[in-house]
């Protein structure tokens, strides 16, 4: 469950209270090698926001041939970067929300496009191997339905002949350091766009008290405009560091940056954020975050900014 306090789209102050999301997670072990996992979500604003009120966030069957070879079939989160598979897991992430700059940059500015969809339908092969005492290598290769012309979610509609390939390689050098590299190739369906290629890099340090995480994603998107092919380039990054005090209170600082396709003028967006996470109990967490958005309005090309305060209480059971 979570609730945001934030200004409305028209930048007027607004304060609301309610239960926004409800997630029901099911994990069924079907024998020694196979399991079924589903996550059904209910969104309070679904109907009002022209979204599905109930939806299958993910649902797949996983067969483990061995620990290094596991095959998933169904709908699953795209294995790109460190955060995408955690997008519905407020209990598992540090901030009130996950850094959207590398996942959903179009939420921050309508001049940006998504680097990859949140979830996909198809097959995912993944596994882990261990070597040299405590090094872990993890790979994920997914073949899914690709984006359609709108570059939005809901790419499971009939007649979608677009296909996408995602690859993520991760290396844990030791218990503290992890590096990863992700690719996303999408042959976007429809006449408006051509190929989308996203390329991501990540680095994380998980100390006992000090934590650090950084990601950088760049993308090239082919666009067909009046019979001519244009190549749009976009990049985004974030850095987040935190310090756990007393084992339960973790203040953090985050800096996000989105550079949408250049349209002949500077249109980058910067989002500094400061917040904390307070672990009240094993399954109860209190979070708060202040973030500041400053960007260029496309219509007027004038600088615009606003500050957002968010508060979140999470209960898992």
């Amino acid at each position, binding site marked *: 469950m979570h609730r945001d306090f934030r200004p409305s789209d028209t930048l007027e102050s607004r304060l609301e209270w309610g239960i926004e999301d409800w997630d029901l997670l099911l994990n069924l072990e079907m024998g020694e090698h196979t399991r079924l996992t589903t996550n059904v979500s209910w969104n309070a604003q679904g109907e009002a926001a022209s979204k599905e009120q109930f939806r299958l966030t993910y649902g797949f069957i996983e067969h483990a041939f061995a620990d290094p070879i596991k095959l998933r079939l169904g709908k699953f989160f795209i294995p790109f970067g460190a955060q995408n598979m955690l997008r519905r897991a407020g209990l598992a992430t540090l901030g009130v929300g996950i850094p959207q700059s590398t996942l959903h940059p179009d939420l921050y500015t309508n001049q940006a496009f998504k680097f990859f969809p949140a979830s996909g339908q198809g097959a995912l092969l993944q596994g882990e191997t261990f070597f040299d005492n405590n090094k872990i290598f993890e790979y994920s290769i997914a073949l899914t339905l690709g984006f359609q012309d709108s570059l939005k979610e809901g790419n499971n509609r009939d007649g979608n002949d677009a296909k996408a390939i995602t690859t993520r390689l991760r290396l844990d050098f030791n218990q503290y350091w992890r590096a990863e590299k992700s690719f996303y190739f999408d042959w976007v369906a429809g006449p408006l766009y051509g190929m989308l290629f996203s390329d991501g890099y990540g680095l994380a340090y998980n100390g*006992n008290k000090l934590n650090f995480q950084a990601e950088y994603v760049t993308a090239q998107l082919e666009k067909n405009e009046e019979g001519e092919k244009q190549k749009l380039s976009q990049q985004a990054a974030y850095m987040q560091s935190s310090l756990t005090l007393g084992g339960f209170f973790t203040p953090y600082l985050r800096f996000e940056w989105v550079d949408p396709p250049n349209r002949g003028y500077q249109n980058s967006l910067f989002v500094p954020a400061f917040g904390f996470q307070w672990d009240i109990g094993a399954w109860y967490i209190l979070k708060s975050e202040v973030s500041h958005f400053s960007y260029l309005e496309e219509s007027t090309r004038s600088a615009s900014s606003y500050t957002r305060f968010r508060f979140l209480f999470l209960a898992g059971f």
Partner: protein
Amino acid sequence: MLGRLIQTPIPKRAVHLCCTLLICICVLVVSAKAQEATPRLMVVVSRESPIITLSSQDVSLIYLGKKTLWEGDLRLSPALLRESHPAMQYFIEKKLGKSVGQFRAYWRKLLFSGSGTVPKSFRREEELFQYLENNPGAVGLCTGEIPLPPHLKELTIEDWKVP
């Protein structure tokens, strides 16, 4: 009265007695802390389980959800006592290299991304033993505070540097 007390010389025997008592208290505190810092840990499975021995790294990988199959045939299900138990805290910090908070966050990530099932945790060892008895693939971590029932066996752990 107070002035007279201060002026009274303290007998040597009393000084010796005080010093001896102080040393005894220090020794007791240090030994108690040492005992607290290195609790007894046992890795236990059902007698029906084909597992006889594990390496120290295997134990870590099982409790981090990275080793889920035994010889490609048996699904491994880690189980332990509540994280508030000092022996479990010791295991998580010294053997897995994580704080209890990090251990919880780690498993939440796996759970919510659909990548794993959180280890079962029990309030009492009797409950843990009952779970192990009914699940041949279950691997349990206990303290040996109560005697091991006949249907369970303790595993030999290579390089397991705990008492």
